[in-house]
């Protein structure tokens, strides 16, 4: 028995040593990544080698994984820059979990007041056919409760709405042709359980280089005398740009234009500049500036031959990221658009997430972007001129308070 105990003790010690080595490897990965990929040669103005020499001995003395993580978090905290974070493995696992496949139910959702809520249902989708309505609360999908996932993510300040929304939507996806069982609370608070068919996402499949092909859709319509446009990604450039140009041309005459970027996570950064050219008539304007390690890129605007002069409202939320933020933030700073909704994702840059050897996640930003008004978008996002929250109650009564606020403002701009 004594021999067995010794064997077990030795194994535990070996496991502990292996885990400690994984923490050390993770530390080196974090430190090296910042050294090699940060947009400043001296990251955060610091002597990064000295930072290594200061923190490495502390990490070597760390007696637990939590302690090691705290040391790494403190080290990158010295940068005093957003989008550098160590995300604990359990939280990272929840967020990193992909859907089972590309099939979707046609439901768009957001976390409102700590609950997953249907915000839109695609026309013709399985969800619409089975009567799912905006405002319904999603309790469970594929046998997994939503609330614990949401609570776990909300407990970590490094997790943003965009990531959380993706995690929620991943639970509503699966193989095309398959089904997913979803438990809802409808508008009257009654439990509804539906088996929803999974179909290809809305839109046309568009490929761009090594990026996975994605479905891109573009819609425009008239709401009274106001033009309204919405598209899910800044991709499929030839189609989306031509459609946007057509929308602008058709907005003559119109009271104004609403560009709805809620849920739009971005895409090709240059498209923000190209689209702004249809809205900004003054030459030599820019949306902002991106700072990379060896160059500085101005996001310039080339006014088109024909430019829309009517008021422009841009709608955003916590899932509006990257190119959406560059576009909205730049137009706001140029005084060309009024922004409605909630603060954007604060992810204007290609900030990357990587799994560390010890299982934790590591987030880091690759560049800095300063909007024309002088504010960095990374970490701060675009703050709307008019903050309007989407609520479950409004959705259940068929209202979109964000669109309504924009329409109201546009009507008030109309010349008598």
């Amino acid at each position, binding site marked *: 028995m004594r021999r067995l105990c010794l064997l077990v003790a030795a194994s535990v010690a070996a496991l502990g040593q292996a885990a400690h080595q994984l923490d050390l490897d993770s530390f080196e990965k974090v430190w090296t990544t910042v050294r090699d990929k940060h947009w400043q040669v001296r990251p955060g103005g610091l002597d990064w080698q000295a930072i290594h020499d200061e923190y490495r001995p502390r990490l070597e003395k760390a007696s637990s994984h939590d302690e090691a993580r705290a040391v790494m978090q403190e080290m990158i905290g010295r940068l005093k820059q957003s989008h550098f974070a160590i995300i604990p493995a359990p939280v990272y696992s929840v967020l990193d979990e992909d859907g089972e496949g590309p099939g979707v139910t046609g439901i768009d959702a957001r976390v409102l007041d700590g609950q997953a809520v249907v915000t839109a249902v695609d026309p013709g989708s399985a969800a619409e056919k089975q009567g799912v309505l905006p405002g319904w609360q999603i309790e469970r999908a594929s046998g997994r409760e939503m609330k614990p996932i949401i609570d776990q993510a909300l407990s970590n300040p490094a997790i943003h709405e965009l990531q959380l929304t993706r995690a929620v939507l991943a639970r509503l996806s699966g193989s095309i042709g398959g089904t997913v069982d979803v438990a809802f609370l409808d508008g009257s608070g009654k439990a509804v359980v539906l088996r929803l068919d999974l179909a290809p996402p809305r839109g046309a499949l568009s490929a761009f*280089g090594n990026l996975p092909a994605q479905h891109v859709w573009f819609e425009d319509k008239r709401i009274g005398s106001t033009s309204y446009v919405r598209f899910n990604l800044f991709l499929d450039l030839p189609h989306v740009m031509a459609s946007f140009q057509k929308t602008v041309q058709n907005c003559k005459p119109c009271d104004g234009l609403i560009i709805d970027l809620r849920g739009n996570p971005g895409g090709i950064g240059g498209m923000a500049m190209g689209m702004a050219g249809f809205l900004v008539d003054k030459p030599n304007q820019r949306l902002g500036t991106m700072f990379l390690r060896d160059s500085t890129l101005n996001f310039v605007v080339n006014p088109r031959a024909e430019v829309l002069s009517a008021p422009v409202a841009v709608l955003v939320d916590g899932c509006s990221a990257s190119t959406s933020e560059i576009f909205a933030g730049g137009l706001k700073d140029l005084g060309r658009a009024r922004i409605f909704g909630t603060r954007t994702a604060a992810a204007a840059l290609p900030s990357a997430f990587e799994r560390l050897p010890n299982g934790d996640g590591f987030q880091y930003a690759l560049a800095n972007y300063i909007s024309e008004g002088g504010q960095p978008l990374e970490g701060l996002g675009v703050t709307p001129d008019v903050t309007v929250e989407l609520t479950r109650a409004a959705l259940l009564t068929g209202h979109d308070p964000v669109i309504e606020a924009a329409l109201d403002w546009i009507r008030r701009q109309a010349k008598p």
Partner: protein
Amino acid sequence: MNRRVLILLLMSSAAGFAADPLPSAESILDRYVQVTGGRQAYEKRKTEIAHGTLEYTSLGIKGTITRYAAEPDKYYATLDIEGLGKVEMGVNGPVAWENSALLGPRVKTGVERAEAIREGNMNSTVNWRKLYPKVENAGIESIDGEDCYKVVMTPTEGQPMVGYYQKKSGLQVKMTTVASTQMGDIPVELIASDYKSFGGILEPAKVTQKSGPQEFTITLESVEVNPAIPPERFALPAEVRKVADKAEGK
């Protein structure tokens, strides 16, 4: 090969193998003209249409490129890039322009215009004296194990270009500069390789360009020599004309 050329070659060779002093920048640039076909071959070329491909390897984006050029200063290129659509650019005398599906039409100004006009000079290789009033040999650097002369060419307007010419072959294998673009000044490095004869002139069939975080390779596939190119090919497109007129208040 005439006597003058022979003397030039002898001078170049002698310069190439001498330990000291360094050959003049002028002789290195003239030698490049010579080893790539000679002044006469360049001067015989009045028009050309070059066809090639473009690839952003790390991004997995490919495209095609066609470049039309005519003596002395006309240039039109069209790029068709997967996922980004068409990009056109051109130079016609003092006017340099660009039109892309991404950013729309525009007329280039300032240093960017000056750089485009230099690129639009069809025989810029032989016309270096007109384009770069100051050239100097800045020494020898090894590139891929080969000694190269580092020649700094300074234009009247814009940043200097630094060409690296192999001591042994006289061929340019690398060029660096800081390009003036609408988005800002961007460090550029070009690596030229796989020299082949296209209609009697040696040209690098492969050029890899590193600009900031981007890297792409242009592969030259064929060159039509002295084809008939209608003058309209180089005319300002209607969309560009519209924005140019608007900018001029017309």
